[in-house]
């Protein structure tokens, strides 16, 4: 049976600002910074133009991941207070535009990285985009509370790509930096999910506080902080960095562990009063920025 013809109201084209919003510019800040630190910490000096191109490709690749994530999760975003103002759930853009934009950015960034910088950096960039979109967004996020543990690897790639862009190789220090961000992600995100868990529950996302409860999540935050601390301090005793990084990493990590312990022993159930969780979440961002900054200063001084 033929469906009745309904006259369609012509839609306005999305604003360019909405395309920019698809790239999650705030997340990109940390990605660009850690990638730049990976690039600057490498023992080989890269031509400034090629270094700039590598960072641009990593930023655009991260933007592609964000756009494809928003394309796939438009239904989920519409159910969460924090995300319902995004271009797709707010109805300011059609899904196909978001998909085309994400694919174009992803393919463009990998191709440019391969042609201008090197194939290893391009390959890791491609893996990081595919990992974020297919493994985290499509496969894990809606299925398991371990989503951000494994998915966290996607955000850990930038320093590795920065290093590979400069040297054309993968060595132990960038692998430790990868491990550091990988192990930092669970306490960082679980601290956030503790005080926004009702939002995740409403959207049906199996975040740890929703599935295992608040106290179990607090224990996991404390437990994950320990291997993270080991990965953060390891470059110093292993002789890959000097005292500047070593002392900064030790002090910052000690403060991180202290905040994680405060989260672990907290019994607060009212999300508005979860101060230790908010404090840990805020500090965790600062922690990564200062730690990577200290690494670059240390490596430049050593050089």
């Amino acid at each position, binding site marked *: 049976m033929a469906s009745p013809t309904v006259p369609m109201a012509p839609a*306005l*084209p999305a604003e360019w600002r909405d395309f920019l919003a698809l790239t999650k510019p705030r997340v990109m800040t940390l990605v660009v910074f850690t990638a730049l630190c990976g690039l600057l910490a490498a023992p080989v000096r890269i*031509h400034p*133009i*090629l270094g700039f191109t590598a960072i641009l490709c990593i930023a655009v690749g991260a933007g592609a991941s964000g756009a494809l994530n928003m394309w796939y999760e438009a239904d989920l975003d519409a159910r969460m207070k924090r995300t319902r103002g995004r271009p797709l759930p707010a109805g300011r853009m059609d899904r196909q535009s978001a998909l085309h934009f994400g694919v174009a950015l992803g393919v463009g960034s990998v191709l440019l990285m391969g042609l*201008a910088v090197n194939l290893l950096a391009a390959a890791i960039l491609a893996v990081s985009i595919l990992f974020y979109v297919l493994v985290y967004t499509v496969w894990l996020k809606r299925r398991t509370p371990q989503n951000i543990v494994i998915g966290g690897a996607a955000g850990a790639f930038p320093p590795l790509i920065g290093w590979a862009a400069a040297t054309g190789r993968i060595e132990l220090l960038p692998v430790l930096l990868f491990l550091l961000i990988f192990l930092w992600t669970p306490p960082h995100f679980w601290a956030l999910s503790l005080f926004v868990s009702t939002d995740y529950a409403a959207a049906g996302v199996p975040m740890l506080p929703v599935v295992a409860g608040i106290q179990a999540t607090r224990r996991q935050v404390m437990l994950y902080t320990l291997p993270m601390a080991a990965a953060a301090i390891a470059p110093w005793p292993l002789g890959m960095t000097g005292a500047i990084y070593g002392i900064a990493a030790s002090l910052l990590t000690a403060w991180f562990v202290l905040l994680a312990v405060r989260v672990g022993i907290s019994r607060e159930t009212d999300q508005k009063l979860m101060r230790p969780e908010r404090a840990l979440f805020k500090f965790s961002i600062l922690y990564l920025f200062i730690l990577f900054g200290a690494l670059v200063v240390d490596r430049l001084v050593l050089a």
Partner: protein
Amino acid sequence: MTPEFEDEYRRRQRARAKVTAWILGALVVLFFAIAIARMG
């Protein structure tokens, strides 16, 4: 299509075209710089 709607439509089209032109221009400069850097 009302005149207001058409005005808004054209305004968005122009804004997107301008941003696209800037990006393409920047890419031209970047590709030129990459070529020089790789030859050096």
